[in-house]
């Protein structure tokens, strides 16, 4: 290591209502792989966007090899030597690899020369790629190679990679790591964003850990255990669980050996998930986003069908049933994505009330919609859950995130569910609204419903759950009573280290 490539001091960036980065400082050395580690919403993306010139910091400075560095736009950052591979690719399916690469360049050379250069670079770094192939035919891993090669052609000094392995197969990950190690050996620094602890331990020289926008520590991953890193990510100021588990209630929801491949090519496969939820119980499921949360909700709501015995409610196998058949039995769900999944953005609140309320509220007679009853159901949700809106005729998208979330949760809670599955019930919701949503979930459980709350907010889970489990790469950890869980244990469950428990302890 020859010196400091990029040094960041006191970077702060606030968005309305949230401080994304709060006086973050760290340094990247030349020729090192530096990890940026943190949970969703910890501020990783905002930080790298500032380095790449996409976002301007409110305060704080950056220095590039000792000189001032304040990129006003990505072009300036690129000219300095910063290149970035985004999590979501920006490629045109109908164009060839070479054409896509040319589109991202300031002064593209003639196509023939470019193809030769792409071939050279791809062979050099062990990333096999044919410049003449159409991008539409490429796998996710190959598409990522296109993005990487596009960056490498600029001869970067610092390569930023935003969760590069989330779309890769294990074999592709291995190839990628070889390439990154080769780049490192040639003196290129890499800023590697991830929340996969084992990956960081094998690849990275240093790690900076962000939590709630703050730099909470640095470590040398190779010398730190996954558990220690997970603890830093999660923090140690956890809410102490207050709810004691009631044992011996009637088992309402039973999931047995549920396996499911995701309908989304970037999704996560659910692997052999089993758990039980009793009447009056709230099971909190934690885990970092993208570890099977969406898929689990789909399997429980009926959007994804499974083997009928995999999901059993009150002794009745429902795995093969669609969402409406399950609603009839009292199994309701509220997905994470409010606009477009839980609610149709351009439709009115009345129409959105019909969306899931049609069956249980009997809003349909002989297949005809009873609009006046639907309107009163919508009004009931609006008043019971204090949804701030001019009225049920407003389009869903005109509501603020918190208000729409209250509507979405209220719509299910008021239908008197036997089983309610919610994913991220208070994501992006202000504190007061979040508290009222949580209270409504607690009330529902007190009335004897079985709840599954999937969330990335551990404080929330600790506050309302009586049992806790964590999803990791589509597997579910052991379910344990929430009372008495330590941060240590939670970090272990979330980091997917539950398999390592025997090995380490």
């Amino acid at each position, binding site marked *: 290591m020859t010196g400091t490539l990029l040094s960041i001091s006191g970077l702060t960036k606030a968005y309305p209502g949230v401080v994304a980065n709060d006086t973050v400082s760290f340094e990247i050395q030349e020729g090192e792989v530096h990890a940026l580690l943190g949970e969703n919403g910890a501020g990783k993306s905002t930080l790298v966007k500032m380095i790449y010139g996409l976002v301007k910091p409110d305060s704080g400075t950056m220095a590039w090899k000792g000189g001032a560095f304040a990129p006003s736009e990505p072009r300036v950052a690129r000219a300095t030597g910063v290149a970035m591979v985004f999590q979501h690719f920006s490629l045109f399916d109908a164009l060839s690899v070479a054409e896509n690469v040319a589109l991202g360049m300031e002064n593209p050379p003639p196509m023939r020369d470019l193809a030769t250069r792409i071939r050279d670079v791809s062979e050099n770094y062990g990333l096999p790629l044919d410049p003449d192939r159409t991008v539409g035919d490429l796998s996710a891993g190959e598409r990522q190679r296109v993005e990487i090669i596009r960056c490498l052609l600029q001869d970067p000094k610092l390569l930023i990679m935003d969760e590069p392995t989330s779309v890769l197969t294990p074999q592709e990950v291995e190839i990628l790591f070889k390439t990154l190690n080769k780049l490192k050996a040639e003196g290129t620094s890499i800023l590697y964003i991830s929340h996969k602890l084992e990956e960081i331990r094998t690849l990275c020289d240093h790690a900076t850990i962000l939590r709630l926008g703050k730099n909470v520590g640095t470590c040398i991953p190779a010398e730190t255990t996954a558990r220690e890193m997970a603890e830093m990510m999660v923090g140690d100021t956890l809410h102490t669980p207050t709810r004691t588990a009631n044992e011996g209630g009637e088992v309402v929801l039973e999931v047995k050996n549920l396996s499911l491949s995701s309908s989304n090519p970037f999704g996560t496969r659910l692997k052999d998930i089993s758990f039980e939820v009793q009447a009056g119980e709230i099971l909190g499921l934690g885990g970092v986003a993208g570890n099977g949360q969406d898929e689990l909700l789909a399997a429980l709501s009926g959007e994804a069908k499974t083997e009928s015995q995999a999901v059993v409610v009150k002794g009745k196998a429902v795995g093969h049933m669609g969402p409406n058949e399950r609603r009839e039995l009292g199994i309701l769900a509220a997905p994470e994505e409010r606009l477009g999944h839980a609610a149709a953005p351009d*439709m009115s609140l009345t129409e959105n009330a019909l969306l899931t309320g049609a069956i249980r509220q009997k809003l349909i007679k002989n*297949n005809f919609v009873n609009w006046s009853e639907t309107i009163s159901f919508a009004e009931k949700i609006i008043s019971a859950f204090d949804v701030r809106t001019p009225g049920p005729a407003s389009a869903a998208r005109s509501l603020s995130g918190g208000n729409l979330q209250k509507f979405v949760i209220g719509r299910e809670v008021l239908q008197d569910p036997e089983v309610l599955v919610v994913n991220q019930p208070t994501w992006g919701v202000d504190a007061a609204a979040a508290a009222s949503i949580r209270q409504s979930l607690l009330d529902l459980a007190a009335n004897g419903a079985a709840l599954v709350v999937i969330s990335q907010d551990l404080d929330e889970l600790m506050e309302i759950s009586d049992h806790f489990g964590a999803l990791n790469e589509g597997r579910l950890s052991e379910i344990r009573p929430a009372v008495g869980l330590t941060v240590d244990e939670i970090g272990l469950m979330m980091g997917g280290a539950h398999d390592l428990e025997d090995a380490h302890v």
Partner: protein
Amino acid sequence: MLRLEKRPQPSRALSLSTPLIAVVVTMIAGGLLFAALGKNPFEAIRTIFWDPLFGEYAFYYRPQLLVKGAPLILIAIGLSLGFRAGIWNIGAEGQYIIGALCGAGAGLAFYPSDSVFLFPFMVIAGALGGWAWGMIPALLKVKFGTNEILVSLMLVYVADQLLAKMSLGLLKNPEGFGFPGSRNIADWESATSWIAADYGLHWGVAAAMIAVILAYILLNKHILGFNIRLSGEAPRAARFAGVNPTRLILFCLGTSGALAGLAGLFEVSGPSGQVNIDFAAGYGFTAIIVAFLGRLHPVGILLAGLLMALTYIGGDIAESQLQLPAAAIQVFQGMLLFFLLALDLLTNYRVKFAIQGAA
């Protein structure tokens, strides 16, 4: 610099008025086009929009409005259901042809019988023909995930070939002195779709009215209509609401096919009168414009179909009286759709004048 800002709510006032604004803007731009061609723009616009309704020969043109409007409306209603759900049937022209062939064929098989059941039988055959032609892209999409836009469009050309084959072969009039084309169905008492030819009234007009009413009820009162709209607006929310996409694809493509087939049957047994090589006049394609011009709303489609028919008739008059080239009329009709879609943006977005560099 101009900047677009999304409105929190779609503007209701604008969504009602943009079609009218689009017509006015089309008149202005079309007027400029006609002026550039050396014609008096005011006279051209008057000839297209005024003369067919209130001119000297309006008694002749007014019935034409129904004759030309009915198939457009009938087809567009069917298409609008699919378009609302994000299912794109571009091949209504083919379903229209096949409906006409099946309906005419079913009738001609019993020539020259006189039975009150003959016409209803032909109607059913026509609807089934169009339905079956629409089910081809539907089944391929459901089973193999093919793109319904391409398949339905390609099937238009297959239908075109079938039409030629039929008018020269199986359905050719045996007493037609070797001329291509079938017997005249319109003159055949128990098979004609005419109710009152002098007023432009035929069963297709009645069917179009019924279709408008039923589509309105379906979309606004029936759960299936709600599911159609939901699938188009938010496909993921539709799956969450338990909508079965396969059934929806089959329903939408089947219904639009059946309605296009009906339009073909009413046309072949009325205004057109016989199966002929040049029977297909492009109603199936123009209906796509009509559907969007009417904002995929049944009442809007009714008005748009009549407006489109008006520009057809007026365009014909302008061609013959003012010697305007046919291409200019087509450009004029194209402008109408163009401006409508462009102005559509305003219902969901506000145009803001931003200070340079601030964006």
